[in-house]
């Protein structure tokens, strides 16, 4: 009896998911998903919304650029944190780490945003960016002038995003490294391998799937972050960023920051619906791929992740 009675209740999440997709599809009316939409054009004529034209290209580039750069940093750091706390540290500092990452995970994204905007930005503009330009200026992306609106731009967004996704990736990676069967680890140690050799040859290869899904889930989180990015990325210029210091924009942060326009211009409203759909599809695909790798989970990693 319970089985058929329960099924509809168990499917509440699926129903909500379906509703979100259906409503966005209906709202967009599947209008102009043509070539212009996927292009790089952006021309907004104030007051004359029908004369405006736009493409999602720049926004997608901004999204993938910030998300992948922050993911590279976050992966390196959380891998180090995870290995350190699972393999090298005694239990007490390990617990301390999970406490700190829990606290970091709990800090609201708008608080990261205002911290980045007010506190970090001057440091980036006056110290970090000039020295990066001096040292790494010959690398593509690191040379060139600062943006004319100030220190708010890609690099700051990448930095803030990195800190924001570290708690999630660290929790997932710790879980992956911890779930490596003890026999394998002990077999490695027993034949005389050092802890590091066991990490290299046993733990990392065995936990590979879990680690990859941690990376992907972190990527999904970074893609979808809107508030903090909207606050620090500048977002004024709708053009491909010439270098890392330039202001650009992302799909999520653009949707978030365009409330006023969506209220006034019907065309922009539809555009934002379509942006939401694209973002939704990208996020779902990233998540589905991540879930294929392991049974590590996004939702409970967030709530219970570093809880041990």
């Amino acid at each position, binding site marked *: 009896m*319970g089985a058929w009675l*329960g*099924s509809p*209740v*168990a*499917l*509440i*999440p*699926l129903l909500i*998911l379906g*509703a*979100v997709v259906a409503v*966005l599809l209906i709202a967009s009316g599947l209008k102009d998903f043509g070539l212009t939409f996927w292009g790089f054009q952006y021309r907004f004529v104030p007051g004359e919304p029908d004369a405006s034209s736009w493409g999602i290209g720049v926004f997608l580039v901004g999204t993938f650029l910030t998300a992948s750069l922050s993911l590279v940093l976050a992966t390196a750091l959380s891998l*180090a*944190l995870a290995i*350190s706390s699972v393999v*090298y540290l005694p239990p007490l500092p390990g617990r301390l*780490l999970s*406490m700190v990452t*829990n606290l*970091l995970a*709990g*800090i*609201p994204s*708008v*608080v*990261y945003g*205002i*911290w980045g*905007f*007010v*506190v970090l930005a001057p440091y980036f503009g006056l110290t970090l960016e000039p020295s990066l330009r001096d040292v790494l200026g010959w690398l593509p992306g690191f040379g060139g002038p600062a943006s004319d609106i100030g220190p708010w731009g890609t690099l700051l967004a990448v930095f803030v995003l990195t*800190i924001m996704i*570290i*708690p999630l990736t660290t929790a997932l990676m710790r879980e992956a490294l911890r779930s490596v069967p003890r026999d394998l680890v002990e077999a490695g140690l027993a034949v005389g391998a*050092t802890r*590091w*050799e066991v990490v290299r040859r046993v733990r990392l290869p065995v936990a590979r799937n879990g680690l990859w899904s941690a990376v992907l889930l972190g990527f*999904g989180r970074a*893609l*979808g972050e*809107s*508030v903090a990015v909207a*606050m620090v990325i500048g977002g004024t210029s709708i053009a491909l960023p010439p270098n890392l210091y330039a202001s650009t924009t992302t799909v*999520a942060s653009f949707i*978030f920051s365009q*409330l006023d326009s*969506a209220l006034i211009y019907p065309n922009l409203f539809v555009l934002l*619906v379509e942006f*939401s759909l694209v973002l939704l599809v990208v*996020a*779902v695909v990233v*998540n589905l791929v991540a*879930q294929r790798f392991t049974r590590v*989970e996004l*939702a*409970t990693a*967030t*709530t*219970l992740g570093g809880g041990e």
Partner: protein
Amino acid sequence: MKVTTGLGDELTHTSGRMRRRILFDRVIGWVLLLAFAAVFFPLFDLIGWVASYALPTMSWATLTQNQVGTGGGLYAMIWGTLVLITLGTGIAGALGISAGFYTAEFAPPAVKRIARLAGNVLAGIPAIVLGYFGYYALVLYTHWGFTTLAGGIILGVFMLPYIFRTTDIALSNVPPSQREASLALGSSRLQYLRRVAFPIAFPTIFTGVFFAMALGLGEAAPLVYTAGWSSTPVQSLMQPTSFLTGGIWAFYDFPRSFGSFLALAFQAAFLLIVIVLAINIVVQVLSDRYRRRLAGLYE
């Protein structure tokens, strides 16, 4: 060269290669520790700066007054946040916990798999997409305009997958021995759930609900497009409302000289940090204590 291995004297007999490997292992251990700076520095820097901006201008009036012109306090936002989070937790708690119970206990395997996958996919949907969905479905389509109710519903949708998945996991992890013992003694499924599974799963479900609450408290993205904004405390669910995260978003880019907008934003940020950290610590302590009481069950 003498290598301190920490492993005792026996290693003085080992070859140079072995020593190099052990040394390398130690060095890596220390190098990896550097990454700790990446989490400790931002946490303390952020909390320190937010406090230093917020505290000098904070007073009792910050909590009890409405925002007036470019000054005043956060009362309307605090009240709005309370109403929204109550609505959200109510909705997400009711739906999420029941969906979790059914998925863990009653659903056939195929339904289980689909429900869990859907829950995790839902958790991965960017909050802003949910917000924009709410804007179309609950603000425009219903002709409600911006309402506290719409904000609460979307906040509930945002929080739901976390509560759902945590409840499901908590119940699925109840040791099978407990279930078998209970059923063998002749209890019905409901009796088993109420008397055996729920008490064991409770600390985890509790943790999930409160973490979801902390997440919901800190989100602005589901709310700006649904709850709207109002500078007076909300009186009915069908009115728009302000909320703490919205306050930060509204005031963060005003220069310091412009009234006390920036101070208000930092005060709201400080308040949010305090609330979220308090929830974190309370949950940790309570669920640890509860778990310790149940520790015997798992042996």
